[in-house]
């Protein structure tokens, strides 16, 4: 049998083209499979969004009541997945993993995963973590620290690990909040403990612990993935240290941060820089990684992310400086513009635009440009406190807060 030149080329191309970092995506462009999207950077690669929305807002596909939790909505294979919480009285209830039909918002299955986490400060009850999904499973972390793998088909539980019982990790004041990460067939999680219990990796198929490393404490931050110098790595910010490990748990580099306890995720700036921000006098910094050594290239108080993570685009960082939407230069940290009025909102990006959700549920479309703040469109999309960042898939934005979820057509 003769193999044509074209076929050979196609095979070679297939072999040498960069493999997706995550093997989760069914359709990489049109899915949102983990916290802050497939690349964990808050950016969708989709293009051609509407520049201007009608006065009453973009087309509403559906809006549904949903229970209390902060988990983002994940979208894959025409389904929406998340965690929600339902209280039976003021002090009791349950957290559920749940799957909806992406076209209608109708429930497909619902699986109880744990007792509901009740927030003592009244910020909001239920899960804090956003699950991760791959071809077969959904991996959820409850507010009380139960890590569960469920079948995507019907929500059936496959395995579970309890961070409190199995690893002796105390429940953080505001609940377990980190979001699991899938990298190179390994499920990775910040465990947040001492005695080599800071970070752990599990076999996604059976939940078997593959490795655990470092000493830390439970944070409210989630890891990201990056490919630097051809090396896949996961990057954790824990307390005042930035850690990098490969999927085998081998430390690649660490960096003593000039800030402590960031909640917003680090931001990977291709090809080899990391941006980290927290509310502190330092505010933010960027390091450059060369041969597994970190060198600080920027340090500025101009951006202080609280829990809402920033996005990087064409040399600039867009994010919430506490409660002011801001654009700063990734080169020197200088502020380019600032816009108040969205409270402690959140943002993602698509088609060179910022999709901003204010902390009171107003959705705003903003040009991702350092020249000036330009609001293209805005409307009230949800009611009430909205601390969960939007998700984007197939031309639609998916929003949720502690009481509602909604899907709007943006294309």
């Amino acid at each position, binding site marked *: 049998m003769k193999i044509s030149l074209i076929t050979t080329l196609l095979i070679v191309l297939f072999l040498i083209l960069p493999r997706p970092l995550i093997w989760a995506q069914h359709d990489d462009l049109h899915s949102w499979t983990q916290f802050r999207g497939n690349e964990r950077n808050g950016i969708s690669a989709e293009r051609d969004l509407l520049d201007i929305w009608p006065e009453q807002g973009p087309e509403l596909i559906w809006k549904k009541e949903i229970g209390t939790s902060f988990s983002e909505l994940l979208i894959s294979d025409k389904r929406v997945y998340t965690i929600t919480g339902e209280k039976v009285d003021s002090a009791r209830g349950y957290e559920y993993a749940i799957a909806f039909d992406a076209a209608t918002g109708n429930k497909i299955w619902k699986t109880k995963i744990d007792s509901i986490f009740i927030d003592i*400060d*009244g*910020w909001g009850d239920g899960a804090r973590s956003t699950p991760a999904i791959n071809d077969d499973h959904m991996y959820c972390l409850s507010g009380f620290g139960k890590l569960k793998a469920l079948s995507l088909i019907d929500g059936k539980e496959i395995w579970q690990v309890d961070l409190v019982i199995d690893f002796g990790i105390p429940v953080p004041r505001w609940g377990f909040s980190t979001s699991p990460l899938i990298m190179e067939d390994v499920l990775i999680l910040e465990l947040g403990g001492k005695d080599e219990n800071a970070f752990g990796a599990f076999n996604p198929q059976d939940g078997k612990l593959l490795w655990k490393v470092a000493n830390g404490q439970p944070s409210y931050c989630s890891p990201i993935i990056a490919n630097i110098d051809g090396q896949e790595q996961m990057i954790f910010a824990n307390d005042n240290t930035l850690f990098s490990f490969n999927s085998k748990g081998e430390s690649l580099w660490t960096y003593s941060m000039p800030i402590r306890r960031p909640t917003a995720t680090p931001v990977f700036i291709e090809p080899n820089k990391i941006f980290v921000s927290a*509310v502190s006098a330092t505010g933010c910094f960027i390091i450059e990684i060369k041969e597994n050594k970190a060198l600080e290239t920027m340090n500025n108080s101009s951006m*202080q992310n*609280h829990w809402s993570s920033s996005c990087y685009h064409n040399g600039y960082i867009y994010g919430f400086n*506490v*409660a*002011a939407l801001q654009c700063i230069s990734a080169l020197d940290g200088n*502020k380019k*513009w*600032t816009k*108040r*009025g969205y*409270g*402690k909102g959140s943002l993602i990006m698509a088609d060179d635009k910022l999709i901003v959700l204010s*902390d*009171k549920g107003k959705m705003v479309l903003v040009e991702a440009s350092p020249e000036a703040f330009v609001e293209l469109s805005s409307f009230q999309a949800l009611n009430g*406190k*909205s*601390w969960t960042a939007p998700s984007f898939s197939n031309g639609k934005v998916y929003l949720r807060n502690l009481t509602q979820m909604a899907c709007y057509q943006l294309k």
Partner: protein
Amino acid sequence: MKKIKIISLTVLLVSALFFSIAQNAEEIITKHQNAHGGAEKWESFQTMKISGKFTGFSIEKDFICIKARPAYYYSEYYLGKYPITESFNGVSGWILDYWQDIDFPRHTNKAENNALRQKSEFCTPFFNYKELGSSVELMGKENVDGVDVYVLKLSRADGFIETWFLNAETYLEYKCESPWVDFAYPVKSEVYFDDFRRFQGVVLPYYIERSFGSRNRIIEIDEIEFNVNFDEGKTQMPRSPEMEKLAFLEGKWAVNVETMSRRGNWYAVDSTNSKIAFSSTNLLEEKISYERMFPMVNSNNYSYNSNTKKYRLAVYHEFMSGLELFEGDFKDGKLVFDNCHISYGNEAEISQAFIQYTFSKITSESFILEIKGSTDKGITWTDQEKFTYTRIVD
């Protein structure tokens, strides 16, 4: 001679520059006052009521405040899930803030008083800063967030310093950096003013956003009313319902002291006076001197412990240099304290002399305090002393 001329010229130039800047600051403040409707118009307002929305922790709820000259302030609002009440009389204030795990009003500290004083101002502090002993210095002109601003440094008479950024075009305030407070801790804050509207001849910001640390607080004004009635009583700190029940103790008292004889009869040992007064919202203090063979001086402190839901009485005996702690509550119209279940965290220190204080026959004019002892940890009690309090009317 030439040197003297150069020095004189330099002094003259520096002086001219100084007076020029001073003059500019005055001019800017005058224009600022005019932009707000003028000092005269503001002086015609004696009280000011603001209704609107307050956002804290991303939760928007109703907000009201009333200000009255010279520097009264009273406000009710919600911060997240808890209601907050705060008040200021120009010198001191009080706050009821459940976030601090204190479920009764308490006096405000210096940092809080400074924040309350800022809140009590009808507009900006540039209307009467001289009368209040403050000084203003023009720091220059800057561009903040794309807005050209004059930067004024305001030094208050008590040392607090604020930096104000006035829009160079409108002369209205754009931003202020001022000392603030976060759950009783002093912090630095930035406040931004927006949505200026004219109402009854004056101009006010209807959107005020303050950031400090990771906090963000927004006031959005719905309605303003001038020259409404203001009840000064609102600035009097209320007591918790529990401490209010102890108010019968407050006052000046004539006290007859009796002890129990071995034959089982009360006999008088002294007559004295006592004054019991609230020294704080959760503390009633009494100092009483009397003779029972020796001169005795006792300090009695009454408070309410919201964790144990019990009253506490701490008695300091000057003569014996002893401190005893009692816990109690009202029962059948009597207020009864004992030390049978007090733990000092060290078994060796537990008192073997169990004592009971009982306040009975309580009226507005008198009450009786009986002190009893027990050697069986409160199973049986023996009379020891009796104090009959009769109110002294000034």
